[in-house]
Structure formats: C-alpha cells, structure tokens
C-alpha cells in the first residue's frame, strides 16, 4: 500500500516535501481539509476537558475543586474554543474536502491562501490556550467579551483580542476562497440550482462570514484601543456606552450562530436523501429557506439583549423578527421529514446522527422560540435555560452534523469502511449522554439557576448531579469516535467508489480513497 502511495507521489509534477514540511507547505485541498478536521478534533478534546472540569465543580454546591476565577476562565475558554476552534474549523475542513469534489473542481481557487487560512488557526489557538499561564490567567469575562469587564482584565485579554483577530482573518480568507471556488470553478453544466445543498449552504455561510467577521474585528479593535490607547468607545466615564458593544457584537454574533448551523443543514441535506434513497424534497425551497435565514439573521441581534433595556417598540420588532426565522427553519425540517417519507430507509451511523440532528435541533429551535419572547426572556436571561438551548443547537445540532458528515465521507477519504458496531456504539452513547447533560438544564433554568457560576443553591443539586454524570458519559464516549477514526485510517473493509447505495453526486464518481489530485479535467454535468 505504501509503495502505491509512493509511486503516486513520484507521478506528481514536482517533488512533494515529506514529513512536517508536507503539511506546513501543502496547498492541496484534501490535505488542508484533513488539517482543519484534525485541528478541530484536538480542540474538541481540549475544550471538552474544560467542560468536564466545569461539570465536576458543579457536581455539588459549594467550592470543591477550583478557585472561582479559574472556573470563569474555563467557561470563557470553553465557549471561545468550541465556537472558533472546533465547530467553525470542522465545517471549513468539510468545505475544503468536499466543495471541490462536489462541483468537479481540481482544487480550491487560491491554494496558497488556503494554506494560510489554516496555519493561522494553530497560532491563534496557542495564543488562547497559552494565556492560561500568563499572570492573572486566561480571560474570564465570558466568550461574548462584554465591557466593562473585558476592558479591565490583564494581558491575556489583549492576547485573546489578537487571537480573535487572527481567527477572523483566517475565516475571511477561507470564505473568500470558498466563494471564489464555487462561483468560478463549477464543472460545465453544473448550474447554481443544480449544486448539492452542502455547497449551497456553504456559499451562503461564506457570505455571512465575510459580512460579519470584519464587524467582530472592528468591535474587538475598539476594545483593544479602549484598553491601550485611551479611546472611550465603551467606557462610560469617557462618554462611551458599554451597551453599544453588545449591539455591535451581536450584529456579528447572531449571523455567527447561523454560520455555525447552515453548513450543518447542508451536511444533513446530503445524508438524509442518500439513506432514504430519494432525492431531497423541495430542493429549491431549501435554497430559498437558507438564503432567508441568512438575510433575516441580520435583523434579530438585539434579542440577545432584551434585559439590558430597550423601548417596547424595539423589543417587539426583535421578538417578531426572531420568530419569523422559525418559518424558513420549519420549511427545512419539514423538507427533511418529507424526504424520509415513504423512503427506503436504512439506518447506518451517518443517518442515525442525521435523524438525531433533526429531532434534537428542533428541540433546541423550540427553546429558542421560547427565549425569543421578550417577556419570557427577561425571566430566563442568563439562566441555565439559555445554556440548555444553545447546547441543543450546537451539540446535537452542529456537532452531531459534523459526526454525521465524518461517518458519511470517511470511507471516501480513507478508502476504508468504518466499523459500524463502533459507530453505532458512539452514536447511542453520544445521543443518550448528550440528553442527560443538557435536558435537566431546562429545568434548572426555569427554576432560576444562573449560568456562569461555580456555586449554586442547594435545591439545584440533583439536576446538576444528573447533568455531570451525563457529561462524563458524553465526554468519554468521544474516545470511541477517536478510536474509530484511527482504525478506519489504518485499515478496514475496502469502500466502493459509490460507498453508499443511494449516494448521488460528483464526489462518488472518483475512486475511494479519493486520489491526491481529482478532476484535473472537469467532468460534464448533464
């Protein structure tokens, strides 16, 4: 096998560097996609360990394991890393691997910029994680970086701001690459309305990133100059307004949550038709629903801020615009269900994760609707109900779709089928563990337990203990996933070119594993 790989390398147009230089200098979309996915997996275990520390401290009321300030550092870093270091890089990794394969392009539009986009990420990751060892420890002001707290912290706050700048730059470059690839490099005959849903969702996500990441960069730049150069954007003593930061941040932040979920919609829209052996129901409505969600996401940001004070008219506007998003989202959920309707269903691991996604994401969507109601939100703001909500959409939503996508495309990437028993074990442990962690948090939130606290009132003990037990089940079951991925890379049953019986699309026409260079002559789509 290694002989064959070597022979293939020699066949290339120039000598490939080997060892670490191969990965540092690679411009191949498949290499870079793998780098993104490995980075994401390492960060998943890093930030996941932080989550387990958080849950350990919360197993009992009172302070057991750590100083409260360290607890705050953990919650902040858990959030920042899970969002910027796990979910976003994983989706970008999928885009790198799949977009060229799905549209019949030989590579991404700007391969060298692609290399840069990736290698900026570990730099930012080291800056974030390294700040734990700085005087005062890592940032502890929450991942939303609200002033005045964020203006008062020590040097790690400056470092975090720079890390956010770097990650933003990486995202913007990655997005430019993805849009340019999709718009300019589709195979002849592959019109926009024939593109796979995953490509569509990423096209729209990339536009969202280009529109909002610079706004985040602006907001944190203002924090930086407030901290170091005597400006007063957010400092009330100098005529600024801390609430303005929240407006600017959430102008980025709300589109950001759709950046974290639209590619998930795309992955699920690829998987459900495959295992239902039917084309996606309502393809065009799926495209329009995705675009509507993206456009509406710019009009709802202040629903994160109902409790900071806002006139009733503004509360009503943001409440109704938020609820309006449920309409295109509902279109999507109904389309997935309709795709499965009367399909010839089989339940391999990717399909199981995709179905769990549809069910559990919908629960997260519904708790989102509850939170969208301004009078209810004033009660639930900053409680565990919010924690339950966004973990349902981010864990059983975004993360489960990533698992589904890995199981779905891993045979194409490695040439080996994964072990189905291990996959199903991983699925059931994850889905049960995840619900044990996060479902009780709804009750905790409704009962009034605030989030981001290391200690709590006695009456919250039982539900917290259940959540902690679930967290350890969920956390350690991810080791099953790691073992499965490593085993699949090393060997396993040979995967066919089409891999899945019902799979449709250009990526399934290339051999498994996908050769280093694909579609050097563009395929023709009828």
């Amino acid at each position: 096998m290694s002989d064959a790989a070597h022979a293939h390398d020699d066949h290339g147009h120039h000598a490939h560097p080997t060892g670490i230089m191969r990965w540092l200098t690679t411009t191949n979309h498949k290499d870079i996609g793998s780098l993104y996915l490995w980075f994401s997996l390492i960060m998943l275990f890093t930030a996941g360990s932080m989550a387990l520390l958080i849950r350990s401290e919360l197993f009992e009321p009172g302070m057991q394991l750590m100083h409260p300030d360290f607890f705050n550092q953990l919650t902040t870093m858990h959030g920042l890393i899970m969002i910027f270091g796990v979910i976003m890089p994983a989706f970008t990794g999928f885009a790198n691997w799949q977009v060229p394969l799905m549209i019949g392009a030989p590579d991404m539009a700007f391969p060298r910029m692609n290399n840069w986009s990736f290698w900026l990420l570990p730099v930012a990751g080291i800056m974030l994680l390294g700040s734990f060892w700085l005087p005062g420890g890592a940032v502890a002001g929450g991942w939303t970086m609200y002033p005045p707290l964020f203006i008062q912290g020590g040097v790690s706050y400056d470092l975090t701001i720079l890390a956010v700048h770097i990650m933003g730059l990486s995202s913007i470059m990655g997005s430019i690459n993805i849009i340019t690839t999709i718009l300019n490099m589709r195979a002849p005959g592959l019109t926009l309305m024939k593109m796979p849903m995953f490509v569509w969702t990423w096209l729209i996500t990339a536009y969202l990133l280009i529109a909002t990441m610079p706004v985040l960069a602006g907001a944190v730049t203002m924090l930086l100059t407030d901290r170091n150069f005597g400006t007063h954007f957010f400092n009330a003593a100098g005529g600024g307004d801390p609430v303005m930061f929240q407006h600017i941040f959430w102008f980025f932040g709300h589109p950001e949550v759709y950046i974290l979920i639209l590619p998930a919609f795309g992955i699920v829209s690829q998987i459900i038709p495959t295992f239902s052996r039917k084309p996606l129901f309502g393809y065009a409505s799926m495209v329009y629903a995705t675009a509507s969600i993206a456009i509406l996401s710019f009009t709802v940001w202040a629903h994160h801020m109902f409790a900071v004070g806002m006139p009733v008219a503004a509360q009503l506007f943001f409440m109704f615009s938020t609820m309006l998003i449920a309409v295109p989202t509902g279109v999507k959920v109904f389309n997935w269900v309709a795709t499965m309707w009367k399909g010839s269903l089989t339940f391999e691991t990717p399909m199981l994760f995709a179905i769990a996604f549809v069910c559990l994401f919908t629960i997260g969507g519904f708790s989102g609707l509850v939170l969208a109601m301004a009078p209810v939100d004033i009660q639930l703001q900053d409680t565990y109900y919010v924690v339950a909500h966004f973990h349902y959409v981010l864990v059983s939503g975004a993360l489960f779709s990533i698992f589904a996508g890995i199981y779905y495309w891993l045979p194409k990437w490695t040439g080996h089928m994964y072990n189905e028993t291990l996959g199903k074990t991983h699925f059931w442990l994850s889905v049960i563990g995840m619900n044990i962690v996060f479902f009780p948090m709804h009750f905790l939130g409704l009962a009034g337990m605030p989030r981001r606290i290391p200690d709590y009132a006695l009456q919250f003990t039982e539900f917290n203990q259940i959540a902690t037990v679930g967290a350890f089940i969920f956390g350690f079951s991810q080791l099953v996933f790691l073992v499965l991925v490593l085993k699949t890379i090393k060997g396993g049953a040979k995967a066919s070119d089409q891999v899945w019986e019902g799979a449709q699309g250009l990526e399934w026409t290339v051999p498994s594993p996908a050769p280093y260079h694909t579609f050097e002559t563009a395929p023709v789509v009828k």
Partner: protein
Amino acid sequence: MTAGKTNTLTKLIVVALGMFGFGFALVPFYYKICEVTGINSGDEQSLVKNTQVDTSRWVTIEFDANTNEGLPWQFRTTQRSIKVHPGQLVQVEYEAANNSDHAIVGQAVPSYGPARAGAFFKKIECFCFTPQKLAAGERRQMPVLFVLDPSMDKDLHTVTLSYTFFNTDPKAQTATLPEKVPHG
C-alpha cells in the same frame, strides 16, 4: 477563468474591508438612532428636570474673596461676576494658595450683599462647609455649587457673594498679625 477568480477576489476583499468600516460606522449610527428616537435618553432622565428656572429675569452675581489678616493665603475668585436666571444651577470656582512655609487650616465664612439676599442662596456644595487644610505652597481650586431661589425678591438685580478666609488656629490671629501679613 483566472480573470473571473481575480474579479471575485477583488469584490470580496472590498466587501470585507467595507464591513470592517461598517463596524466603526455603527458607533455614530448607534448614537444617532438613540438621539432621533430618544431610545437611550438615560442621561437626561437621570437628571431631574428643573422646571423652576425663572427665565423671565436675569440676576447678576458678583463674587468677592478676602483673607483675614491672620492667614497668609492668597485667595481669589476665578470669575468676577456672572449673569444667571434665578433657579438655575450655578457652579463657580475660587482659588486659594498657601504662601507660608507650613500647613495651615483655614475656614471660609460667607457674607452677602445685600444681606437679605443671603436667604436665597441655596448652596449644594461649598468649600465653606468644611475647614480647608493647605500644605505649604499648595494651590487649590474649590467649587461652589448653588441655586438662587426663584422666589427671590424681584427688586434684587445684583447680589454679591463674598467669602473671607480665617485661620482656624486662634493663636495665629494675634501672633502673626503685625509682621507677616502684607497689606491689600
């Protein structure tokens, strides 16, 4: 093909830079929205509106500063006089400097001209409320914050607020009087 890619790249970079600028443009936009709609008028709400300003007349207030002979300080007003409406919140500053080589505690005592105007000076903050200690060579600006009661007699057009600083050490009065105090 390559021209198409460069074209897309240029457009997207322009959008990204534009949105970076837009982030900063949100700052004045935010204040403008608040101003036009009156949404974030916390500043005005937090100050109780003074509806008792009598804008129908002007009163001239003259300020005067004196030092008792026992006190080697230089004491002056930063403004000779101002014109205000009765009921309006007024802040003026006096300045004292200790010219001696040791710390001295002084106390300012006000007087009014005409004397009946004194009843209408409503002082909110004044350096005369407490003894003031000045170190050797120290110079200090001290505020007086007051409102002229709008019910003040209509025939009063000019009033005088005068302060005299005294040394709080009773011995100083006589001991230092002959040699140290400069005249004027």
